[in-house]
């Protein structure tokens, strides 16, 4: 049952200002208009624009007591909460209340950041009926982006026209007048997007999903380079946030982009000459290695609450020394990471990798897959990795070491990346079910390995913990947690056979072998 009322946003043409538009409307309607107020505010969102993607707008307004103001939908009352002055706000930095309750599931572990400063002149207006009841709402605004490195950059002036529930006809009349008589056209993008672009940012935010136009006929080396360049952009985009430690996801996304790049280099290795390829694979492996400690500790801390939920609430306090230790370890790991990422070795490695992507790849005779159609090469790799996984999984029984499952998981990641980058070259009806069964298998393998890693980490704290105040008590409770993790790992292992059977089912095997073929068949 739809209750939403429509909102239209129009750009004011050059030469028409908000008072002019109000005067125009007053000749036709009873318009009550307030005075324009000048405000300066900051567009706030996570680096990957989660607030915008959830259909909302968040700004920081007010100078004496700054407030975060969340506009959930046009026509709905905004939510506001005082915000401490800081370079970023995580959920725990926001005061408890409706704004935090709304934002928490949207931003999760990401930090809210100031993305653009805007000066605006805003006035509200109402179109009223004969009973002086508001039947259409107007919001008129002129904006200018301030952080342009020079003069403020004027943005599109806008009028937002919102209906009022139960009064569709007056809205239709106002819209008709604005479009047909005043000739207004729909506003181009959101004000926040425009302001971010005018301030030198990307309105889409820092992305993590590769969006490169590929087709099965294209040369494999060109496709690989296009994907790798975009992944390299992601690494560079996430580096400043990682160094500033704005939130944990900058490092996470940086690492994912590096891992995916390594995967492309490995899976499409025939597109590159062997020697420079090995050198770049080594460079990326090193970057992955220097970022591992911090990420591992981030995961420990992010999953801490969920982990300790396994023991009764009255024992949580006893675990605090363990958590404090993790926080200390994480701070130390981050210090080491910053030294590495700011160091010459990293600069050289990255510059070398960029030069590899942007330079000449060498004669095609040294690169057997370079000119082959992408569909052939990628299809071959998908078939081979899948086949290999089927063989590896079939060899796993109850007595197999945990290592076999870990190896299978690694292959699974390879397959997942292949499908993510190149799956669209084949019909979704084939790729989708495959991704689904792969995901089911990877979830089981992931839980199996993560629980082991978590338990190892907790065990690794034991010696140090024994020496701190409250440590022995914490150790007792940690023992319970480690047991619990062990039980969950065993449970995941018990599910392996079932999820592997779905992944390696005869009809799926047949489908993979017949579908993932390129233009040359």
């Amino acid at each position: 049952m739809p209750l939403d009322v429509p909102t239209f946003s129009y750009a004011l043409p050059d030469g028409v200002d908000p008072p002019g538009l109000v005067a125009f409307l007053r000749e036709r309607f009873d318009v009550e208009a307030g005075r324009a107020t000048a405000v300066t505010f900051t567009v706030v969102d996570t680096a990957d624009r989660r607030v915008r993607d959830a259909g909302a707008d968040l700004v920081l307004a007010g100078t004496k007591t700054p407030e975060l103001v969340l506009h959930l939908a046009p026509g709905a009352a905004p939510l506001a909460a005082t915000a401490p002055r800081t370079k970023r706000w995580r959920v725990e930095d926001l005061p408890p209340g409706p704004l935090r309750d709304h934002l928490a599931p949207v931003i999760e572990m990401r930090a809210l950041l100031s993305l653009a400063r805007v000066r605006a002149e805003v006035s509200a207006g109402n179109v009223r009926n004969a009973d002086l009841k508001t039947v259409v709402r107007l919001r008129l605004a002129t904006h200018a982006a301030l952080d342009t490195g020079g003069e403020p950059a004027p943005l599109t002036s806008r009028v937002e026209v919102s209906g009022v529930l139960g009064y569709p006809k007056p809205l239709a009349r106002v819209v008709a007048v604005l479009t047909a008589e005043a000739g207004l056209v729909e506003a181009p993008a959101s004000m926040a997007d425009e302001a971010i672009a005018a301030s030198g940012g990307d309105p889409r935010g820092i992305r993590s999903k590769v969006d490169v136009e590929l087709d099965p006929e294209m040369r494999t080396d060109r496709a690989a380079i296009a994907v790798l360049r975009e992944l390299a952009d992601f690494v560079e985009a996430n580096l400043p946030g990682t160094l500033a430690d704005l939130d944990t996801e900058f490092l996470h996304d940086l690492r994912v982009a590096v891992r995916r790049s390594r995967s492309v280099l490995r899976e499409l290795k025939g597109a590159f000459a062997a020697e420079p390829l090995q050198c770049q694979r080594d460079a990326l492996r090193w970057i992955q290695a220097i970022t591992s400690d911090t990420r591992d500790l981030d995961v420990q801390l992010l999953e801490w609450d969920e982990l300790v939920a396994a023991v009764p609430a009255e024992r949580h306090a006893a675990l605090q020394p363990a958590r404090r230790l993790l926080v200390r370890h994480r701070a130390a790991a981050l210090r080491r990471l910053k030294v590495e990422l700011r160091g010459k070795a990293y600069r050289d490695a990255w510059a070398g990798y960029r030069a590899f992507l942007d330079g000449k790849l060498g004669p095609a005779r040294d690169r057997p897959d370079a000119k082959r159609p992408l569909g052939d090469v990628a299809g071959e790799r998908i078939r081979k990795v899948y086949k290999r996984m089927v063989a590896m999984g079939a060899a796993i029984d109850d007595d197999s070491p945990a290592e076999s499952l870990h190896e299978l998981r690694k292959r699974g990641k390879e397959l997942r990346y292949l499908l993510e980058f190149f799956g669209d070259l084949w019909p979704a009806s084939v790729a989708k079910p495959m991704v689904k069964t792969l995901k089911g298998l990877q979830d089981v393998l992931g839980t199996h390995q993560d629980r082991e890693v978590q338990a190892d980490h907790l065990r690794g704290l034991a010696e140090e913990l024994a020496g701190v105040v409250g440590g022995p008590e914490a150790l007792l409770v940690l023992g319970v947690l480690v047991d619990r993790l062990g039980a969950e790992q065993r449970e995941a292992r018990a599910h392996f056979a079932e999820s592997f059977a779905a992944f390696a089912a005869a009809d799926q095997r047949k489908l993979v072998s017949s579908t993932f073929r390129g233009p040359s068949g």
Partner: protein
Amino acid sequence: MKVLATYNIKGGVGKTSAAVNLAALAAGDGLRTLLWDLDPQGAASFLFRVRPKVRGGGRKLVRGRSDVADVLRGTDVEGLDLLPADFSYRHMDLVLDESGRPSRRLRKVLAPLEDHYDLAVLDCPPSISLVSESVFDLADALLVPLIPSTLTLRTFQQLGDFVETEVDHRPEIVAFFSMVDWRKRLHREVVETLPDGRDDIARTAIPAATEVELMGVSRSPVVVDKPRSRGARAYAALWAEVRERLAI
């Protein structure tokens, strides 16, 4: 969706004023709020400049033969919608009596709106009837305005007894003093002594204030029109108390 109802068997005690102001405050807090004007006099609808008319009539609405979404009206307060009164509500007892399980009828009317609103505030007509029984069945809490007098406690006790003995689903009852004239000794004494030791009477009292009476002229909730006035501040305090007490 939580449901609050302002209710008293007596009229002229400040039910509508409380309903419109608390609903406006809830919307101001970002709750998607619906106000249902169940009183055929349509005072809440009048205050929001909405014609007290339900398309197709109240009978069809209550009997589930018209779509409730079609009769809703947005108010001048953003985030607050109104289900308007209709003069036919004066016969609602008869309509309820004709239908099966009358006490469940109003619940059924609101059911399709469950996901669209966080809070519904029901402004009830003064009576004790099938309408009020249907409201008791639906509401999570009854907000009962009490004018301080010697009979206040007795009336309030009667309501409590009725809900206790006659109603299956028992809403929480929260009374508050309304239209308190601090110049009157009796008002002061009752307000200052009665809440002692009782957790069903709110700490906040709503004063008899000119600005509240003038809502009929301004046709706007006092919390919107004169948010810094004494009356508006009292409603804000009452809303904060109700919100905390009922975990809204």
